[in-house]
């Protein structure tokens, strides 16, 4: 293939020019790039967390907790169903694993009970062994709930992180019940972890003033109440309080929450209910003036004020023992909403911005030095043809950067290593071709024929060796994680561009040069 069709030359030249244009925005600063009009190439390389600093968190949604909570409310539901007919007698109503079990005393009432439960709890399945009934959710229902919990968790995580005002976070579902969170440029990952680690389930309930903490501890606790930790300002450490289970209003009915100050200028959180919440709160407080109510956050009572008068305005203020930061975070959590299930951090990788900057510097130095070494070696080993190979090498680098910018692929530190490695290996294609051309010239072939034969012969080898590497990088991408994926990406892109530059660009340069000089024999 000594004569190239004009369109081939045109396509090659255009591809190289496009590469230059799309790589160009990386030459200017980030601010300058943001001012480039959107119709022009303006995308820059996306730096990985290891280069710009930031936090990588892998969270796991505790879906078991969701199911447990559901079964808990099913237990209440079944109790209500059973009590509808006062003549029905039963024993041993309890949770057992993911199901609720109950023994109906009178076998004649069994069918009636089954019918009642089926009516009240349509999502359940009832199996039974004689008088023992076992009520559980349908498998499809459990799955749907689990899925919904994960979806909702992602949404809440997104809202919380957005509220924190970080730039360009990545929030993705990963695998079955995990959420990947990547927040770049964070100097203190602790606050992020604190905010994501809280379920933020807020409820307003009444304090059970008839049951003392001592009674509750000795087991004299009515089923409608529970013993919770009490963490208000001024309360002693480890204090507890008995609170009714029935929820007056919950955090779902909040429309807004802001950090503010109470009348003693202590940090507090002010909130607004929606119309339903405001009415319920108003009704409840109107009928219970003088009683204590509890503000419960994640099963801890953060405040238990006395109702002075009916609170009708649909808004209020929570005073607890907050610092300003804690008040701000609580307001944020309340605005973003409660998580349907607790989140666990199962993997954390945080890099400080300073280390990231050091890594960029090391990466840039390595690239420069490695590049110069290879370029010098190629000229030393192959003379002019080495120079051609070097042009290909520079183009190769430009094309990798251009493609990565356009694809918005993330450049990581291993990714930089990948680029360096491709620079070394990309020369391989040129070396193969050059060695072939040398051999053919020694066999007495004319320059153009030597180049033609050299390329044809070397092509199969180049293809073989590059394909095997690409196979490995695909595997690495599929099974690797985080920064290592960046390595697979840069090597794969680098191999593809190196094949293009070595096979098309260098050959065109060589042929053009020989035709121009009208060489009879290659000076190899």
């Amino acid at each position, binding site marked *: 293939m000594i004569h190239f069709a004009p369109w081939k030359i045109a396509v090659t030249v255009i591809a190289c020019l496009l590469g230059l244009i799309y790589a160009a925005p990386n030459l200017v600063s980030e601010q300058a790039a943001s001012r480039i009009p959107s119709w022009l190439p303006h995308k820059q390389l996306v730096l990985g967390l290891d280069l710009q600093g930031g936090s990588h968190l892998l969270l796991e949604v505790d879906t078991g907790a969701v199911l447990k909570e559901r079964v808990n409310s099913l237990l209440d539901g079944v109790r209500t169903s059973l009590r509808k007919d006062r003549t029905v007698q039963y024993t041993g109503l309890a949770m057992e694993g993911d199901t609720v079990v109950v023994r109906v005393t009178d076998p004649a009432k069994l069918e009636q009970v089954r019918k009642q439960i089926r009516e009240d709890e349509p999502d359940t399945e009832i199996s039974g062994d004689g008088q023992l009934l076992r009520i559980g959710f349908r498998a499809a229902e459990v799955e749907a709930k689990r899925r919904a919990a994960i979806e909702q968790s992602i949404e809440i995580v997104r809202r919380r992180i957005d509220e924190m005002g970080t730039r360009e976070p990545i929030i993705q579902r990963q695998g079955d019940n995990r959420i990947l969170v990547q927040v770049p440029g964070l100097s203190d990952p602790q606050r992020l*972890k604190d905010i994501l680690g809280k379920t933020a389930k807020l409820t307003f309930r009444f304090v059970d003033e008839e049951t003392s903490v001592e009674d509750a501890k000795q087991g004299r606790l009515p089923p409608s109440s529970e013993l919770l930790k009490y963490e208000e300002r001024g309360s002693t450490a480890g204090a507890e309080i008995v609170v009714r289970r029935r929820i007056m209003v919950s955090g779902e009915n909040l429309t807004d929450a802001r950090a503010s100050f109470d009348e003693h200028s202590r940090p507090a959180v002010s909130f607004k209910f929606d119309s339903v919440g405001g009415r319920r709160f108003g009704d409840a407080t109107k009928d219970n003036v003088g009683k204590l109510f509890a503000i419960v956050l994640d099963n801890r009572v953060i405040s238990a004020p006395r109702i002075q008068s009916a609170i009708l305005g649909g808004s209020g203020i929570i005073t607890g023992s907050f610092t300003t930061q804690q008040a701000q975070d609580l307001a944020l959590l309340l605005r973003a909403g409660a998580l349907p299930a607790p989140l666990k951090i199962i993997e954390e990788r945080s890099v400080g911005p300073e280390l990231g900057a050091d*890594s960029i510097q090391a990466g840039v130095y390595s690239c420069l*030095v490695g590049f110069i070494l290879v370029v010098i070696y190629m000229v030393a080993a192959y003379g002019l043809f080495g120079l051609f190979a070097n042009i290909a090498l520079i183009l190769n680098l430009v094309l990798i950067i251009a493609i990565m910018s356009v694809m918005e692929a993330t450049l990581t530190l291993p990714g930089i290593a990948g680029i*360096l490695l491709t620079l070394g290996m990309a020369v391989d294609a040129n070396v193969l071709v050059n060695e072939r051309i040398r051999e053919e010239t020694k066999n007495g072939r004319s320059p153009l024929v030597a180049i033609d034969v050299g390329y044809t012969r070397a092509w199969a080898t180049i293809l073989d060796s590059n394909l095997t590497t690409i196979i490995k990088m695909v595997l690495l991408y599929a099974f690797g994680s985080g920064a290592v994926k960046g390595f697979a990406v840069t090597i794969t892109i680098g191999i593809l561009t190196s094949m293009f530059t070595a096979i098309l660009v260098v050959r065109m340069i060589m042929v053009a040069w020989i035709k121009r000089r009208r060489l009879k024999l290659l000076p190899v």
Partner: protein
Amino acid sequence: MYRLRFVPDKTSIPFMKGRIMGLAVSAILSFLSVILFFHPGLNYGLDFKGGILIEARTTTPIDFAQLRSALGGLGFGEVGLQQFGSPQDVLVRLEEQPGGDPAQQAAANKIRQAIIGKYPGTEIRRAEAVGATVSGELFRNGMTAMGLALIAMLAYIAFRFDWPFGVGAVATLVLDVTKMIGFFVITDIQFNLTAIAAILTVMGFSINDKVVVYDRVRENLRKYKTMPLRQLIDLSINETLNRTVNTSVTTFLATMPLAIFAHGPIQDFAFVLLFGIVIATSSSIFIAAPILLFLGERRLRPGLSAAQARGDGAKGEGEPKKPAVSTS
């Protein structure tokens, strides 16, 4: 123009003469590596073993003995302290904490606070905490990737070449990889995801080299119909020697700066690559080719009996015969 050439143009080094030696040395090294793998074993990093890693830079030089006792007193088991770079840089490693993922986070926090408490103004440069679930998965995935890579290579080479080539290439790869494992044990470099990436890369580089030599063998098999296999393999290695050396040198040169300028995991990565390049280059000549010779004598040269081929090879050493018929 002066040309730098490590290898003269017309070499005819009888590499196959050293085939037994090459295989023996390689087998011994690999065998020793396998022993090292079991004892003392690899230094598994955070990715595969779980645990906590914190890299901090303090404002004043660190008193390591004091910091060690302070952190050791927190009750998180063995605390690994490592100074690197300046006396203000410290790397703290903690084994995985019992009590699941929340325990990891809690321990990481306490360590962080303890360091900052001792050295106010400390910059936490890196913090990693990996729990057992994730590290187990990462390990399984890493091993799967390596295993699949080996199978894929075998399939690919067997598909493109005859089976003796495939077996030769994969057997060589196994020998290469075991030596790299040995390298990890001896240097005590952490074995984590980047290590897997390094091994896969060296596997790729190694296979490239084998493909080039094997390609030439295949071409020469068609070109020299009567040349004994041993002589033919020698000829092919000699013909491709220049490219083998040049490619290895450029890749080595490109990777070297990373080993010098980078620090931490990526520097280890570069060292492993440099070692791997040397291993891969030598194994193309001393391992892959002899295996092909042993496996392929009967199959690739059916006309010549093994005994005859050996006899001819011994006599005909040195200058390869001129091609009888050129195929081009």
